């Protein structure tokens, strides 16, 4: 197995706070890799460093052999690394169908294409693909609803659909089940395990251990900006350092 994403020696400080300290992480092709850790461990910071929202102080982020640091968000997307957001980042004023057509168009048109005289009606290929993707997520019935009017759970699923339709090489999922009811969570787990989603290389940031252990091939534990352990779910369960980190947090709470 080759490494699809390599994070080497990444540091990030905010003011005096070390959010990330010498983080090393390899994501292998085809795996589902979960990053867990107590609140404030730097999980989201790490994700943001990968997709160009933050620039690490030093270290390297290499994706498919290409250096990602300093690249624009839209170029990182086209390189094949796509992020699904924690709070649904959708287009509330657009319909569900349009929400899914937009990323499909991005895949086809690139970062910029001026085609003001082409009719949307003639975009049958994109249209069909979008409808099929919506169907995968059980959202096709609502295709002409405004995304902003949907429930939170539906918005999360829409986000996943928007990520999936771009056929990314690597999908970064930021707490895909946060705030979901139990049966929605289970449905999402099934969704992420099966079909096209199942085959995709994924990095998942998650609090819910049930989700993590249902999905992950490997797990990395982040605490106070350090990766303290990486391994299979079984290894992580029995790692004393991990227990300590989590118990420490529980005492705080």
């Amino acid at each position, binding site marked *: 197995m080759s490494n699809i994403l390599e994070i080497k020696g990444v540091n990030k400080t905010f003011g005096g706070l070390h959010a990330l300290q010498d983080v090393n992480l390899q994501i292998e092709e085809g795996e589902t890799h979960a990053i867990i850790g107590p609140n404030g461990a730097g999980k989201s910071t790490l994700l943001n460093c990968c997709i160009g929202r933050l620039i690490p102080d030093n270290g390297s982020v290499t994706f498919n052999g290409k250096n990602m640091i300093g690249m624009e968000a839209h170029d990182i*997307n086209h390189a094949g690394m796509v992020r699904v957001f924690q709070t649904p980042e959708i287009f509330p004023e657009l319909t569900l169908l349009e929400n899914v057509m*937009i990323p499909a168009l991005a895949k086809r048109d690139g970062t910029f294409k001026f085609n003001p005289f*082409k009719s949307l009606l003639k975009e049958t290929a994109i249209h069909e693909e979008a409808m099929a993707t919506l169907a995968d997520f059980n959202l096709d019935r609502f295709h002409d609803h405004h995304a902003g009017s949907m429930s939170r759970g539906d918005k999360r699923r829409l986000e996943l659909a928007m990520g999936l339709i771009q056929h990314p090489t690597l999908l970064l999922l930021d707490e895909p089940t946060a705030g979901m009811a139990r049966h929605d969570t289970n449905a999402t787990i099934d969704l992420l395990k099966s079909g096209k989603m199942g085959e995709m290389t994924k990095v998942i940031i998650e609090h819910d251990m049930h989700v993590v252990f249902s999905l992950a091939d490997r797990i990395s534990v982040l605490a106070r900006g350090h990766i303290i352990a990486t391994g299979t779910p079984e290894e992580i369960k029995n790692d004393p350092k991990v227990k300590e980190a989590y118990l420490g947090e529980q005492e705080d709470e």
Partner: protein
Amino acid sequence: MMKNLIKSNTVIMLIFAAVVLTAPMWTAPIGANYPDLLQKFAIFGIFAVGYNILFGLTGYLSFGHAAFLGIGSYTAVWSFKLLTMNVVPAIILAVIVSGIFALIIGYLSLRRSGIYFSILTLAFAQMAYSLAYSVLTPITNGETGLQLEQQDPRIIDSMFGVVVTDGLPSTNLFGTLMSGYSGFYVAAAFLIFAFYISLKIFRSPFGMKLLAIKSNQTRMKYTGFNTKPYLLTAFIISGMYAGLAGGLLASIDPLAGAERMQWTASGEVVLMTIMGGVGTLIGPLLGAGIIKYLENIFSALNKSELTEIFSFMPEWLQTIVVNISNVFVGEGWHLTLGALFMLIVIFLPGGVMEGVTKIKDFILGIFGKGEDNRTAEIEGEAK
């Protein structure tokens, strides 16, 4: 948006063209069927339709679009002076030159977003306005405004042996004079063309992407779009529309003055767009029509006419009503405009088009047909 697509472009354009070209007839009952006003409807309609491509689709509020209108006017008058009295080159040049200015101003202004963008466009427009009054007087003729003169070179015209010996030459379209109804029909033809382009843009992937930028620009970037060129293209297109409107204004009355570029003039096009309905296809056009019509009526009224209008009232009431309404007419038209502005933004931010939808829903509601599939489905889901 997909739902609207069912209606075919051809059908819409045929209806639209029919409505616009028959305007001299159906405006007769409201007393708006004279050429000057109809020309204004068409020209400001173009201006507003173009402005809507920027503001309506991307949500970027420019306070400087009047500058492009002014630039278009100056360019057209120069074309009349130097080249020919034919309006075709004048209008083409007006569109091109204002497009170039839009490229420069847009490139710089779009480096910022939100209110900073608005202030930058405002600053650029005010610069253009101030310069037109001062340093650029050789080009703009300062406060007097740029006018035609009998001894202008008119190179192309003189090549064809057209010599003006008596008075000022008139603008024309291959011989047809631009005054009166023919002026209106030329402007109307451009309006139909401009509306068609706008319709195409609204219903293209490009237009949908612009709407998505308005909805959530950050998401667009992470979805793989470079949003800057999209915004800049929209800015340039709307600048060219403004230039077209400016060129047409100069074609009908070959005089260009800097006051066309003042920021309050930019405010007016914003109002037209909002009044009709931002982001709707036909709204800005309605807005332009309503405002130009009201301007025409209100600014022409005076106290004695008001007295006549309210003569059916008892005398004491008549005096009160006349005195109050007198504040809003004649020179007070701007007061009415300001009040309209506030009322629309406060109570009907979606403009007339939102009002129409509300009324339609209300009527359909009475007859029990208002429940479209969407609400029914959501209710079904809840159960």
